[in-house]
């Protein structure tokens, strides 16, 4: 097999060992490449899968993409338990280790800057959903309540749509205030685009999709804060994910 070198993350050297059973993409164990006081976490991937052409085709294949994304995230996740990794975007691939060393030399100042900024921090994801209404999926109206006229029908439609709009507004107001509250308890925060329910398989409509950068030492407090909000608003669901590596905060500060 002709191999390419896949880079998952860049970190500072760390003392704790990685899990012994840890595997990356394609089942290959990740290795550490030390250079200029930084560490690139790499594994070998088949060129047949990661050449330009192959990759382009693979990225259109949701099964391949999700397996690869999960393997990538698995390595980042393991790193997060022993250090603060700087996660690279999916499919950062080099021909050999010398290419990686050259890349480190070119970017080392950036890497150090961001690693310093993120050291000891994790990312928490918080999403707010407007719960689906059971009534909406049930039959439109029982026979007894059949609209007497077209106008009656329209009036009811207007009322029901009005009620839905109101729920949206309530959910958005809740999401907005929650986001502001969480931002005050985080060092930094980002808003992501709402998630498509077909991909997330989460019921309801995603109203808020936020990411929050929190020092490890204050994570417990942050998690409790989110937990407390879970019962605050009826018909609204709050979901917490994490701790993630600080994916959403590797770029420029806003």
């Amino acid at each position, binding site marked *: 097999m002709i191999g390419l070198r896949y880079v998952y993350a860049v970190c500072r050297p760390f003392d704790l060992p990685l899990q012994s059973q840890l595997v990356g993409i394609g089942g290959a164990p990740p290795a550490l490449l030390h250079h200029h006081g930084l560490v690139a976490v790499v594994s070998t991937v088949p060129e047949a899968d990661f050449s330009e052409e192959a990759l382009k085709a693979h990225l259109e294949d949701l099964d391949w993409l999700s397996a690869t994304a999960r393997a990538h995230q698995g390595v980042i*996740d393991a790193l997060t338990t022993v250090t603060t990794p700087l996660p690279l975007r999916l499919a950062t691939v080099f021909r050999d280790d010398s290419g990686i060393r050259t890349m480190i030399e070119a970017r080392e100042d950036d890497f150090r800057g961001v690693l310093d900024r993120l050291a000891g921090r994790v990312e928490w994801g918080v999403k707010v959903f407007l719960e689906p209404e059971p009534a909406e999926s049930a039959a439109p109206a029982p026979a007894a309540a059949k609209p007497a006229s077209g106008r009656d029908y329209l009036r009811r439609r207007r009322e029901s749509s009005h009620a839905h709009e109101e729920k949206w507004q309530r959910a958005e107001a809740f999401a907005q205030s929650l986001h502001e509250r969480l931002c005050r308890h985080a060092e930094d925060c980002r808003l992501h685009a709402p998630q*498509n329910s077909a991909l997330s398989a989460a019921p309801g409509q995603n109203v808020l999709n936020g990411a929050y950068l929190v020092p490890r030492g204050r994570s417990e407090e942050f998690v409790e804060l989110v937990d407390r909000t879970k019962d605050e608003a009826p018909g609204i669901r709050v979901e*917490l994910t*994490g701790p993630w590596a600080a994916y959403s905060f590797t770029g420029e500060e806003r």
Partner: protein
Amino acid sequence: MTTASRFPPEPYGQGSGANLADILERVLDKGVVIAGDIRINLLDIELLTIKLRLIVASVDKAKEMGIDWWETDPALSSRARRDELARENAELRERLARLEELELEPGRRTPKEAP
């Protein structure tokens, strides 16, 4: 997904809380961008991310459908679009109701319909 917890606190294993959308939006859309030896067009990745968000056959199709909220601030423009639709809906409903009223008042039938 790991649930190792050498660094507390780890109250939520990502295997339980995170869904595929959570993972994809991070590994595809976030993280440090480095030009490796294998060039993948970042625009391709961007389009891919959009496609995954929408689960539509193609981005062009999405644009045809008028779904373009990702091009600006999602927090603002999705609401803007929704408001716009709601307004348009209300307007259409009102017009329908007005037309119906006309229809229901016999005195206002147009001469054309008289025998």
